[in-house]
């Protein structure tokens, strides 16, 4: 009976729950789904992480390669993110060139990397003007159940913390790069940007961490990316219903608490991996 009502009037079905300040999966309006993270499981990548936010699953693999630095910035390397939403994660995506959602997500991740200065590009330079590292960050969604941006940002951060780069020296006689795979060092991660996404319902209600169905019914979305000092790297609101300044403030405070939760979880996982 409830299933029938849900199919015919999905919005009304949801409103009944929202009136009681909860959601169909039993969560409160400000509650996140269970977050799990698995770091370093892909041995072929230089750094990897798998993040699950409820059902939404994103895996991030980072591969480091050599490249010549750009001519206008000879002492900088590259960080190239790419978000892939393959048909296996949801029936809404078809195979072929990346659709709009994937392109927007890739652009979002590129902006987060750029704005938050998570890695100083100068750290990736090996020899000014001649050789630098390029980090290819591939984010693949394995299961799409809403809130892809939060999962991708977390997976990227965890994977970058896991990346180990070998020591490279330029041999002066042959001018070739010599890689010492025995001596590896971690990247220096300057800030820890964490994303918190909200969905706007009926122009007034804000709910945190929307599932796929909730995103579909929402009249607007908002994503806030904050670092540990409370500075904002990104306030991404692509249209949708309007928000007042007061509502934005509530979102900010929720983003601050979320940042603490995520940082704690990630530090726990990384510490548990330490004794090798």
């Amino acid at each position, binding site marked *: 009976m409830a299933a029938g009502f849900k199919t015919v009037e999905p919005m009304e079905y949801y409103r009944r729950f929202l009136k009681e300040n909860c959601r169909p999966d039993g969560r409160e309006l400000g509650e996140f789904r269970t977050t799990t993270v698995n770091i370093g499981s892909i041995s072929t990548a230089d750094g990897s992480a798998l993040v699950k936010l409820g059902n939404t699953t994103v895996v991030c693999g980072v591969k480091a390669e050599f490249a010549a630095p750009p001519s206008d910035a000879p002492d900088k390397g590259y960080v190239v993110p790419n978000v892939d939403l393959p048909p296996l994660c949801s029936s809404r995506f078809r195979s072929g060139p990346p659709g709009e959602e994937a392109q927007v997500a890739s652009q979002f991740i590129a902006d987060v990397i750029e704005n938050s200065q998570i890695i100083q590009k100068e750290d990736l330079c090996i020899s000014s003007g001649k050789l630098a590292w390029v980090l290819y960050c591939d984010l693949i969604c394995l299961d799409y159940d809403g809130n892809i941006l939060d999962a991708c940002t977390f997976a990227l951060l965890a994977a970058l913390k896991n990346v180990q780069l070998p020591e490279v020296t330029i041999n002066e006689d042959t001018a070739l790069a010599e890689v010492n795979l025995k001596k590896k060092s971690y990247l220096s991660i300057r800030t820890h940007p964490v994303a918190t996404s909200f969905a706007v319902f009926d122009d007034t209600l804000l709910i945190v961490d929307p599932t796929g169905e909730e995103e579909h019914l929402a009249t607007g979305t908002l994503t806030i990316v904050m670092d540990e000092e409370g500075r904002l790297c990104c*306030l991404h609101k692509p249209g949708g219903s309007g928000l007042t300044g007061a509502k934005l*403030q509530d979102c900010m405070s929720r983003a601050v608490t979320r940042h603490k939760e995520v940082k704690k979880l990630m530090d726990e996982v990384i510490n548990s991996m330490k004794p090798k």
Partner: protein
Amino acid sequence: MEGPVRADAKVCSEGGTESSPRGPGCSLRHFACEQNLLSRPDGSASFLQAEKSRERLIRNTCEAVVLGALHPRTSITVVLQVVSDAGSLLACCLNAACMALVDAGVPMRALFCGVTCALDSDGTLVLDPTVKQEKEARAVLTFALDSVERKLLMSTTKGLYSDAELQQCLAAAQAASQHVFRFYRESLQRRYSKS
């Protein structure tokens, strides 16, 4: 180790939402492609992604205000052609889109306007920055505000800033939006009083 191989090509194209200041009346765009031994080229991919991202922002803002339910099975196409870019491009695109929708007579629940704020390194706020100011700024924030209650419809930001600075920029943008809406009203009055 070989250096990068450069391949340049001049492509003639029209339309699109990005222009390069290559000279008046010229729609030639310069494409450059660097090919290394190992890596795949990244320039053109990131160029298209930025366009798609801007398109989505403008489209979602329009969708929030247009009363689509009054015209089912209708497709509304908004084509934006950049004539010249002297800073605050996205805000200008939003203003143009709103005026075009009004001109077309599309029923809307509110008007919207775009405002850009730039924050420089010592925290000074500059509204409607030029290209030079945007490049030197620590953070650039673009907002779309509606005309009824000055609510925030769309926001996209670049750079790092604090929560307090965000509220400051939002307040300044809301004050500035009044001027933009007054301009809309005046230009529409002028247009309809002539005919």
